Structure formats: C-alpha cells, structure tokens
C-alpha cells in the first residue's frame, strides 16, 4: 500500500510536467505563427501564471459557491462534526471545515490549497442514506485528498486545461481570419510560413484533447490513492467500500455539479454509463470497491 502511494505521487508529477511543456509548446507555436516571436509565449505564460495565482487563492470559495454549499453547524450535525474531528486526530491533521450541500443525491468533495485550509463538503443525501461507518469512510477519503494536496493539484490542472483550450481556440480563430484576408502580405517567407501554420493548426486541435486526457488521468490515479489513504485513517476499508456501493447505486445526478467540478467529487456526479474508460473522470467504481475489499 505504501509503495503504491509513492508511485502514484511520482507519476502525478510527471503528468504535471508534461502538462506544462504542452502549454509552453502551444504558446511558442502561437508566437512563431503570428510573427511576434517570443512575445506570444511570454504573454501567454503571464496570463496563465496570473490565472494559476488567482485560482490558487480563491479556488475553494469559488467551488463552494458554485456547488451551493453552506457551512455546517455543530448543533445541526453533531455526529458529522465529531466524526471529522476524530478522523483528523487519527490522521494527525488539522480538522477541515465542514460544508453541507442541500441535495438528495449522496455525494461529497474536498477543496482547499493545503491541509490548514481544507474543506470537506457533503450532500444532505449522503448524511441521510449512509450509516456512520460509511460516512466516516467517505470523510476519510476526502481528507486523504486534502492531505495528498490533490485538491490543490486538481484545481491547478483545471485552470491549466482551461488556459490551453482558450489559447488553441484563439490560434484556430486567427488562422481562419488570416486565410480569409488572403496571403499576399506574407509571400516573402513562403514555405516556412506554411509549415508553421500547419503545425500550429495541428497543435491547436490536439492540445485541448491531450490536456483533457491528462487531467482525467491525474484525477483517476488520485481516486485510488485517496481510497487507500482513507482506509488507512479509518482502518476499516469496508466502510468506504459499502459507501461507494450505495452512492453509485443512486441513479440521479447532482443538481449543482458541472463538468468543471466533476473530478472533485468522490463519485462522478453525472454517471454517464457506457462512456469509454479513457474519458471518464473516475475509475470504474467496481474496481475501486474490489481494491478496497482486497486490502
């Protein structure tokens, strides 16, 4: 179990590195293509950096607003507060703040840039349908996400995907715009220019797809890791396994979830069955339950 955790962490850094390279490549080609050279790369990187900075500090409140979560009062959910306090003692971590989403569909997610700023949000459906050990399993899974800095990474990855998509959209548009205006002005540079244009076009089409796939791969690896870490905190993998069974048996989709926030939840809130393994934000729940029961 411990070695699996180390391997997952390393792979995640590799993925993140590839991601940054990809972004830089798109920026470079864009600069070459528009003839502004390094300026394109520089400005694109600056914008991306600002976006990352903003999301680093405000992502948690944005996500909580977007999902309609409210802070939980201890008088209202005493056993939930006790569970999360107990788990944080067991894990030797600061207790995350607890938020409630008024939704009958059982689900949960975590956010926050570090364990001190951690937030765990659960739906009212989760509190009603699951018993105490199952809820503890879910809470421990979310706390593991916070402990592993998944919550920070997931948000940063989301922003990076957004930036790459935006940038390549930009390239595609300016490409069509240019070809409409005619190419008399740039006849001097000839074949070289055409080649760069083709490369730019190919990258601009491929980049968003790659970016999305990378983000999904990050998110899927991290679900297994958080399952393992969560079980390490509760010492009771069966709690989370049976919670996952109950949550995934729910046919309804979450009201306030969007494609952007989907990877954050413990189980994909959209449940589009039949979609291929490559494009799903979460590993098949059956595989996760099987792994938990084999611990």
């Amino acid at each position, binding site marked *: 179990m411990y070695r699996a955790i180390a391997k997952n962490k390393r792979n995640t850094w590799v993925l993140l590195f590839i991601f940054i390279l990809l972004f830089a490549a798109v920026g470079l080609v864009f600069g070459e293509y528009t003839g502004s050279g390094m300026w394109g790369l520089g400005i694109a990187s600056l914008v991306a950096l600002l976006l990352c900075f903003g999301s680093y500090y405000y992502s948690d409140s944005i996500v909580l607003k977007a999902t309609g979560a409210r802070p939980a009062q201890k008088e209202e959910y005493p056993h939930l507060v006790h569970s999360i306090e107990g788990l944080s*003692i067991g894990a030797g971590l600061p207790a995350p703040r607890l938020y409630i989403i008024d939704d009958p569909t059982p689900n949960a997610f975590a956010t926050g840039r570090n364990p001190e700023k951690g937030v765990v949000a659960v739906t009212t459906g989760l509190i009603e349908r699951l018993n105490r050990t199952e809820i503890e399993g879910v809470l421990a899974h979310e706390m593991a996400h916070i402990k592993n800095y998944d919550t920070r990474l997931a948000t940063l990855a989301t922003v990076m995907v957004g930036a790459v998509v935006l940038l390549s959209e930009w390239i595609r548009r300016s490409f069509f715009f240019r070809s409409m205006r005619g190419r008399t002005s740039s006849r001097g540079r000839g074949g070289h220019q055409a080649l760069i244009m083709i490369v730019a076009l190919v990258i601009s089409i491929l980049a968003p797809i790659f970016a999305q796939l990378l983000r999904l791969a990050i998110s899927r690896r991290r679900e297994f890791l958080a399952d393992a870490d969560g079980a390490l905190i509760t010492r009771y993998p069966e709690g989370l396994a049976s919670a996952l069974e109950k949550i995934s048996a729910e046919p309804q989709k979450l009201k306030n979830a969007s494609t952007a926030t989907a990877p954050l939840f413990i189980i994909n809130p959209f449940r589009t069955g039949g979609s291929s393994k490559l494009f799903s934000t979460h590993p098949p729940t059956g595989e996760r339950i099987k792994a938990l029961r084999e611990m």
Partner: protein
Amino acid sequence: MDLSQIFIIIFGILGLAVIFSYNRMIIKRNRVDNAWSQIDVQLKRRYDLIPNLVETVQAYARHERETMAQITEARTRAIAAATVKEQEQAENDLTRNLKRLLAVAEAYPDLKANKNFLMLQEELAGTESKIAFARQFYNDSVMEYNTRLQLFPHNILAGLFRFEGRDYLEIEGLEREPQAVQFGSNQGGE
C-alpha cells in the same frame, strides 16, 4: 596531504549523517509525546462530560444509583491516577460502567426523549471515538519511532544517546472495531 583531505571529507559526511539521524529521532519522539497529549485532551473531555451526564440520568433513573456511584468513583480514580497502569485500569472501569449506564437508559423512555441526554450521549460517543482515534495515532507514532530506533545504523546512535522505545497503548473497549456495532441503531441503513 591528500589522505588528510579524504579523512576530513569522510568525517564531515559522517558528522552530517549523525546530525540528520539524531534530529529525525527527536522529531519522531516529539510526535509520540504530542500524540500522547492528544489522548489526554480527549480523556479530560470525557471527565468533564460525566458529572453532567450523571446528573441528567439521576433525574430520571433513580434506581441506578450504584452504576452512577461506580462511574463517579472510576472517574475520580482515573483523574488521580499516578501511573499509566492505574489510569488504564480506571479508564477501563469507566468505559465499562458508562456502557452499562447507556444500556440501562434504554429502559427509561422519558430519559431517552430528553434533549439534553441525547446531546450528552452524542458528545460521549464522539469523545470516545476521538479517544480511539487518538490512541490509533499514538500507536502509529510509537511504531514509527520504535522502528527507527531498531534500524541500523540508527540503533547505534539510539544506544549512544539513550533513546528508549515506547509501549503501545491499549484501552479496553475503545478500539475502533466496536464502532461497527452502531450499524443497527442508525437511521437509513439498509
């Protein structure tokens, strides 16, 4: 000339290794101490809850004087305990009697409907689960610390600086497993 340089380098590396190893042991030992005080905090919380609980139960269940007297006595003993062994014994008595009290409470519908009692019961359950978690964290920290002391080459330094391993802690009836017993009493189970 050359040889002395080599010696200086070797001693430098050795010195750094000793400092690193020593500091790691200190860090791990402090973590054990901190984990221990976590248990203390939660045990104290339980002591604080008990007078309130006893008072509430007394108002409804006058026939359970003996159980309540035992709880109060065990609490006093636990607070006054001088050694870990004594405290363990007292805590075990306390846990057992509290369990009996809560079981007895089932026979008094008025008590079971009392808001204050329900709140105290939840507080107690929460605190006991925290004690169990604190104990788990303590034992984890002890395992890490003890393992470190036994590993070569750290065991040489551990002997030199008199680092001593710690004992694992058992508090009867407060393991994580009995939590599963609460399955049935939860709403919305299966």
